[in-house]
């Protein structure tokens, strides 16, 4: 049994942000995450660092929060943000009055929006449709949610926090209105670990109600699925937004070597219903192609979906519920040391974390103050890295390697074949993989993906799978076939809704390759899958 001041449930951006904040204030804490960090809504979001503009007209509180956090994050977390800027465009038949309201609302809420001429917009974004009639520039940016979360986790660890992935909360032991013990299953080996925390913070996003139910409480919330499609290639320099009342298929986010289009909004019953459908893919391509026509002829590589936990259950449409967050102190419902936080956005995670930490700190009587708006998330030591490795690669590797750039580069330059490109879609080096294979957090091949982007490109693990698997089994005693099958299942889930044109051909080819190399035909694969289920 392990005592701790704070136990945080959930290793998405919210949990990670709280962990960093509280650890820096000197709290003793443990964070547990059932899967890998950022594998919930966080890693399945659109990756947009909002400027607030999208919410200016209908949700002014969110808008103001986003505007402030946008500036802060660009300062403290620039390693995972591409400050590309964004443009809002109205098309011919869009409500043009909305554009005027938009500009004045931006002014009121503190969002820096500026009208530019159609010619200027086309010059900035040559791929834009010639049909646009008005355009506004805003400071939107593209953010890597995996890196942002891992950055917070590592920063918390630097301040002595314990963060454990593959640890799932199973049960609470409640004693006279206090959560006395939290029973956690270690999914790496099936063992049970017991924590005795003074305060429990429920940051489990879409699962918040499920966690609350362990304390016989319920949280009123609705689940709203949003899907996105990864389009091969960067079609735009910055983000493109449709200027209209927020609806589906409004946004294009350039991210690494792709453009991500989204999103939809569909009510669902369970956080596990996070699969994008072919209909959603069709819809999103049609809708966003009105802004960037080339999307219609581009290759859709993958589709994925995340679940938004929205506070309240009264209203019918997911988009009308405020995107600002809700902080619940369950002492009012009879559990003294239990706090839940739900809703919000990736963009405002830091602010949410600050509010939660304030509450926790006052309960614990901590005196340290919040410094997350000032201290850079990671103090990466870039010294002589650039001298040791070709600079274009160095930039990318350093960006992805959080605090470990020096060690990662060392692997790349000193290991046999460390500089070999294993994943050419995303330019991932064998040395990077080899570093992360030895990291305590990495269990599955997809954990390597979230840390290095291996397998995220247009072949979706088609070619890198061989190098990826061989590197992993050099450093792990896991059954390679099990690793392989798990990875393939995960990748296929996202490919299924886009099986047409390029991706269809790709999948046929991969089927042959993987069957040929690993003798993994449909039958033997089915057997493995059955084994995994058991």
């Amino acid at each position: 049994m392990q005592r701790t001041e704070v136990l945080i449930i959930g290793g998405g951006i919210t949990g990670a942000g709280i962990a960093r904040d509280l650890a820096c204030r000197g709290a003793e804490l443990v964070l547990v995450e059932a899967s890998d960090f950022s594998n919930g809504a966080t890693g399945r979001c659109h990756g947009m660092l909002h400027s607030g503009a999208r919410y200016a007209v209908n949700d002014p509180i969110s808008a103001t929060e986003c505007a402030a956090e946008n500036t802060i994050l660009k300062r403290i977390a620039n390693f995972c943000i591409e400050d590309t800027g964004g443009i809002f465009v109205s098309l011919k038949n869009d409500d043009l009055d909305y554009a005027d309201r938009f500009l004045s609302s931006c002014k009121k809420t503190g969002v820096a929006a500026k009208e530019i001429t159609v010619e200027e917009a086309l010059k900035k974004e040559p791929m834009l449709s010639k049909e646009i009639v008005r355009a506004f520039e805003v400071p939107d940016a593209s953010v890597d949610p995996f890196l942002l979360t891992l950055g917070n986790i590592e920063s918390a660890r630097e301040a002595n926090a314990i963060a454990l992935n593959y640890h799932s909360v199973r049960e609470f032991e409640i004693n006279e209105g206090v959560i006395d013990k939290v029973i956690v299953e270690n999914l790496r080996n099936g063992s049970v670990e017991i924590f005795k925390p003074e305060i429990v913070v429920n940051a489990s996003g879409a699962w918040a109600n499920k966690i609350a139910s362990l304390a016989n409480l319920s949280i009123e919330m609705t689940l709203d699925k949003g899907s996105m499609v990864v389009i091969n290639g960067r079609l735009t320099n910055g983000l493109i937004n449709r200027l209209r009342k927020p609806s589906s298929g409004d946004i294009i986010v350039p991210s690494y070597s792709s453009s991500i289009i989204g999103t939809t909004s569909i009510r669902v019953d369970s956080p596990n219903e996070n699969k994008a459908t072919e209909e959603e893919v069709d819809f999103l391509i049609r809708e966003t192609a009105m802004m960037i026509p080339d999307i219609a002829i581009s290759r859709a590589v993958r589709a994925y979906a995340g679940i938004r936990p929205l506070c309240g259950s009264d209203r019918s449409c997911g988009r009308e519920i405020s995107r600002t967050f809700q902080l619940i102190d369950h002492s009012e419902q009879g559990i003294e040391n239990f706090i839940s936080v739900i809703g919000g956005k990736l963009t405002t995670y830091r602010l949410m974390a600050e509010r939660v930490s304030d509450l926790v700190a006052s309960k614990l009587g901590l005196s340290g103050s919040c410094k997350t708006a000032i201290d850079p998330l990671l103090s990466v030591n870039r010294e002589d890295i650039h001298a040791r490795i070709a600079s274009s690669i160095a930039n990318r590797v350093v960006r992805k390697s959080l605090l470990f750039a020096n060690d990662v580069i060392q692997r790349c330059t000193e290991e046999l074949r460390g500089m070999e490109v294993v994943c050419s879609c995303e330019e991932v080096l064998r040395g990077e993989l080899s570093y992360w294979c030895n990291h305590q957090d990495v269990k599955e091949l997809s954990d390597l993906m979230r840390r290095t982007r291996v397998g995220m490109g247009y072949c979706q693990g088609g070619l890198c799978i061989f190098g990826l698997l061989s590197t992993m089994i050099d450093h792990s005693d896991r059954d390679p076939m099990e690793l392989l099958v798990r990875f393939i299942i995960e990748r296929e889930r996202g490919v299924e809704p886009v099986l047409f044109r390029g991706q269809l051909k790709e999948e046929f080819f991969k089927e042959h390759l993987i069957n040929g190399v690993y003798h993994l035909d449909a039958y033997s694969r089915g057997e493995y899958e059955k084994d995994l289920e058991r």
Partner: protein
Amino acid sequence: MNVALRTSDCIKCSACNTVCPVVSIDGISGFSGPRNLVVDLPRFFAGRMISSQEIFKCTTCWKCEEVCPSSLPLPDSILRLREMMFNEKNLVEGHKRIVENIDRYGRSIEPQLGERMVYVKHEAEILYFPGCISEMRVTSIFDATVQLLEKADVKFGIPANWVCCGAPLEKIGDLNRLESLREMNLMRFGRFDEIITSCPGCTTQFFRHYDRDPLHTIEVLWEATRKNRLKFKPPRNSIRVALHHPCHIKRTIGPQIIDQAYDLLQSIPKVKIVELEDPDKCCGGGGGVVAGFPDLALKLATSKMMDACRSGADILLAPCPFCVLNLRRVDIGRVEEFITFINVYAEREA
């Protein structure tokens, strides 16, 4: 359409990299290969491209496109990127020279022999466009072509004041200069629609950028032998020859010309044809590589000449002035230009 979009149907089979002659010589670290350059990298940039000299190492042999199961326009995309990257101030030494020569002489190379005379003997029905190399470097091509066309009774003329077709400019990405050369040439071609060329580079250029359908000399000669206007006498001693299949004939103008070249060789008595192991392997002479990366071009040519020696041929025949120039830089083996060789044995049919 941007490059990333044109090549987005890649399935990553790597067939292109496997057959790329430059990858085979320079390794993936020296030349990261067609897939990386025109499929993978352009995805990271919206309508822009990083500057890298590497892209100028491609010989435009078109081999990658031939094997690509998705038939992606790979060499074309490489040329497109060169065009986007073109910056007169950043050219490598050899490419700078091409541009200077064109500006000064209207030729891609510096004149060495003084300009050849304008040759119009008959009431011309068709134009012969000699091209820079045949006119001033491998001059035997010019002489042989003129003699052969005469023997075959072709009523041809050479346009006065022609300028370089622009093929080298396309290869270094200078499409503005190419355009002005094109206009000058078209003006000088006047009423003539039909053009004969003795250089696959010119031939390719005319159909890619001039919207013409030019004939290669081999096609004209083949036609003439079929119509019994030409016949061949045997050499004194029998000769073993091997035929190099130039990339720009085999994969851009059309493989039928290679067949025609074999037909012509077969009709010369006592000429024995031996096969090269990999007859359409690139000799390194194209794509501006001889000018830009002479060492790389030499290595490719050496590999070709080794093949020729292994085949047991006395002479390696190459129907392309660029190939001949580059192959002759190698110290081993003997290279002859194809038309020049044919001309020695061709006679007017009585």
